[in-house]
């Protein structure tokens, strides 16, 4: 028979043994069936929620993004080729595609403007900055404080909480 801790399989397993499932194995399969029965309705509910959300329309970050802001930016800085985006939803890849925006990470735990030193630096270097944090109040507050610190103009997307900051002295 097999020795403990040996990985050598038995040379001739008997046919009866190969056909008889172990009791533990059957219990495991029954348990898996129970898990399946428990999870299938959950999976179906997830799918329903998913499709319902899809039908309800696009979430805000998938809506046509900042059309008014883009127009205003074109008017204010016709030669701007990129915008520094400060967002905690950096997955907005489509924005990158549409605008050629350069993304900047903002840590999730940013709750005050001091963490936006990079945005401040970008503005001082003359780059337009889009502040689009998920929380409306936080976004607006951050944008206003940044504008106050740098003298930037604040452009407002009427349908959105995002604020675009145009530096007082645009860079190249």
């Amino acid at each position, binding site marked *: 028979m097999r020795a403990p801790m040996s*990985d050598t399989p*038995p040379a001739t*397993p008997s046919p009866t043994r190969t*056909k008889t499932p172990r009791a533990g194995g059957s219990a495991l399969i029954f348990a898996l069936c129970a*898990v399946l029965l428990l999870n299938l309705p*959950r*999976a179906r509910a997830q799918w329903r929620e*998913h499709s319902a959300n899809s039908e309800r329309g696009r979430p805000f970050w*998938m809506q046509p993004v900042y059309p008014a802001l883009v127009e205003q930016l074109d008017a204010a800085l016709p030669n701007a080729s990129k915008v520094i985006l400060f967002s905690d939803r950096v*997955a907005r890849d489509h924005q990158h595609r549409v605008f050629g925006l350069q993304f900047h990470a903002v840590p999730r735990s940013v709750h005050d403007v001091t963490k936006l030193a990079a945005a401040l630096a970008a503005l001082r270097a003359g780059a337009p900055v889009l502040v689009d944090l998920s929380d409306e109040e936080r976004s607006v507050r951050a944008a206003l404080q940044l504008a106050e610190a740098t003298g930037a103009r604040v452009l407002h997307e009427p349908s959105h909480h995002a604020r675009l900051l145009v530096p007082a002295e645009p860079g190249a």
Partner: protein
Amino acid sequence: MISGDAYVLCVSLAGWLCGRALSRGRLGALESWALGTAASLGLLTLAAFVLALVGWGLPGPLLQLALLAGGIQLARVLARPRAGQERTSSRRTSSGRESTARESTEREPTEATSPRWPWLVVLPSLALAVLMAGDWGQREPAGNWDGMANWTTQARHLARSAGDPGEGLRARVVGHADYPLMLPLAIALGWQWTGDETQHVPRLLAVLFVLLLAAASLGSFARVAGSRSACFASAALLAAPALQLAARGQIADLPLAVLTLLAGTRLVASLQASARGDADPLPATLTGFLIGLLPWMKNEGMLLALCLALAALPAVIGRLKSHAPLLGRLLLGALLPLALVRHFKHAWAPPDRMLEQLKPAMRNFVPDPERWRIALDGVAREFVPLEFGYGLQGLLQGPWIERWGGLGALCLVALLLGVLRRPRAAQGVPLLATFGWLAALCLVYVLTIADDPQWHVDTSLWRLLLQMLPFTLFGALAAWSREAPPVMLRDSIRPPDNTSPEAP
């Protein structure tokens, strides 16, 4: 769209052909397809990376087809039985002493003629997961962060770079630019077919990986537990809320789970084949290649590869001499992907913040009991109910049930009990890999440099657990399966070498 389909179909076809070269058994067909497709995709992206390195840019569709055809031909040549092997096998089977492989080939018709209805059990779970992964709806068309959005952002840098693609990646200022390139390159290669950067390519790839998970789990589970049990187990796996969530977000952890399952099951099979004295070099080299692909898929893959390697140590260490050829082949197979991952990390990827700050993190964070509490509590909550004080309702709350539906807990307990009851070294690999992975995750979360470790645990731990879960389930099924040893992929065409001195 049609070209995107053609790309994914070509990769799948290549996988099927490679799988045919590896196995001619019906039971292994699904697993072989998954194995061949994952290996083809890995090989294709590695080749594309090499071409980009030497300045040739990304290969176009014709060159990709040529590379795939070359890979298939290589697999066929390597898989061809050596001269005299078939004669040897017929002599062995005609002898009075029947081999294990003979048993397995005799089992195959039994499995094939088993009732067909269990296959239907898989369909609802699979359909839901496929729909989730390939949803063409408006919600999150670019996929979740850490998912398709990240793959496509990186792929875009690769596809658009006329000169040095590494320069574009280094210039990325946000978001996992240090992630390895298997998925981004797979997407960028698909875009070479479509001519534009359509989202259909990453979506089809996400669907492909859900199908690969179903195929790999069905095939590998059936090898150790029979087709009926495999159907129930695969269905339970695919219906797990966490897996559905991963499919819905098209996150890269699901493809990594597929690779881990394939690499882990192949490692177990290679160890068993080596213990029998099977000198076939191809399966072991392929196993090494799959293990090497883990870090090529995602950063956590390096840790997964280490866990698999360490888990195999007890099985190897006692019989180092007889397992030496196996080790050599594993290393040979892993050499190319590991070398290219290393080059990517050094030449293209921005420095890893966590690795850079590892020393101060170890000094400051490891002695911090609060960090250990957060990590251990987070891991424990994924497996056991810790919401006390609300009676039965409290027991049925928390991630262990809401995220896993109890599947994680069941797998862990079944694996532990099964292996304790039947401590065979090769079957200890899933157990050691699983618990090694859990220990590694605890350490990672203690050392995390995220500002808020609790947030890090809450948002990412389940995805990392998902990477190992299919292999854990395989281990549980293997530990509680029938006494007959698992069927090797190529057993149906090549019986083990019972005439070797080590054979009993």
